[in-house]
């Protein structure tokens, strides 16, 4: 009973992967590895590290396919795995700054998720007006869904700085959207 995998949805592919079908993993890789790779490269200039993160990601997908909870798109789930792998690799290179325990909670509220959903619109223009370092923080926390600690790892800045920049960015963005 051969199915044409190119016609399966991403969710179906992940189910097949959970059922140990290697071809399904290959198809998922064909569809998603490209953009995951590119997106990682925008966060880290080290090609070797990016390749390793990508490799770890798909191995993790194979092992953890059963834990995909079907809420949200497969792409988002994949990206969550990939960015955290990258951060893990970065962490091995740079030491973790000591931080308080609320650093591990995701910073992004529902309101900010709504903001993220507006692709071409007021947000895009407003983002343009932010300074690069503020934009980077918004990208890390809103687009990538990282916690303070993870964002600080990725951007190589202390967690305190991540928070203050995020607050400034919110202020400026709200001002621009009004």
């Amino acid at each position, binding site marked *: 009973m051969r199915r044409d995998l190119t016609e399966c949805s991403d969710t179906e592919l992940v189910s097949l992967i959970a059922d*140990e*079908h*290697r*071809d399904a993993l290959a198809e998922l890789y064909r569809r998603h590895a490209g953009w995951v790779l590119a997106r990682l490269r925008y966060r880290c200039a080290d090609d070797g590290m990016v390749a390793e993160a990508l490799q770890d990601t798909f191995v993790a997908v194979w092992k953890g396919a059963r834990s995909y909870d079907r809420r949200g798109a497969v792409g988002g789930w994949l990206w969550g795995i990939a960015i955290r792998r990258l951060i893990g690799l970065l962490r091995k290179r740079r030491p973790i700054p000591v931080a308080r325990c609320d650093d591990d909670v995701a910073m992004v509220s529902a309101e900010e998720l709504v903001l993220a959903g507006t692709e071409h619109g007021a947000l895009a223009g407003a983002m343009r007006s932010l300074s690069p370092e503020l934009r980077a923080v918004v990208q890390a926390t809103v687009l990538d869904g990282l916690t303070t600690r993870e964002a600080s790892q990725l951007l190589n800045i202390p967690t305190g700085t991540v928070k203050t920049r995020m607050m400034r960015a919110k202020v400026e963005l709200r001002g621009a959207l009004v």
Partner: protein
Amino acid sequence: MNTAGSGAHVALTQLTKSYGRTEVLRGLNLALGPGVVGLLGPNGAGKTTLLKLLATALAPTSGTLEVLGRNPADAADRLEIRRRLGYVPQEVGLYENFTVYEFVDYIAILKEQTDRAARRADVCRVLAAVDLEDVRSKKIRKLSGGMRRRVALAQSLLGDPQLLVLDEPTVGLDPEQRLRFRQIVSQHAERRCVVLSTHMTEDVEALCERVVVMDHGAIIFDGTPAGLAALASGKVWLAPAADPNALMSWRTGDGRHRNVGDAPVGVHLAEPTVQDGYLVLNGRVLAVSSA
């Protein structure tokens, strides 16, 4: 047509195998060369025993056996034979806890493929040949019967063996799988010798250039499938009902009956198949042994 001679892949002369007082193979004479040879016969005819002898899993009681030009009784020769041999036993025994890949990889290790990269390439090649790449990470105990047969077939193809010995390889395969199996075997058989035993005359018709029929430990026919079918020429006819004088008759899809045996005069004769020839042969053998 395969011919005897020193170029033969397999040569048997007066080969006998007995267990205690039971003679399972009686003085067989056979020579096989490149191509696919089908071994037909009822249960107990000695097919499995013959195949085990060819695969060097058993020693003969008497007679000479030459496999790939070597004598299996000699330890060094036997090793060389086994390096060029692939075997699928009748009962497919696999390690349930292994994944497909692990099992085939394990057999590859036993076949002395010590170089990891080369071994991996070979394992992937045989898994692709039997279309099991998708499930290669599944544990064997989760596989269906047909898939397990394919695992057994895959391991036999490791190392591209010169002699492939397959004991009832199509049992439990559905028609699509059987077709795929025929493709794999005929591809492999181009310069190599494949000996397979089967109950299904369709396999013989589709795949074998030569067919050997066995009964009670002896060879009762050695020739081409067409030759076997020809034994039934003039002996197969179609009639509205089963003929009581026929050796065997059965109802076909269009409602008529196919009868095999001594045809009465004036009936509508049908083109004989390998199966018909096999029935006639066995009928004759049965008649002789009951005389």
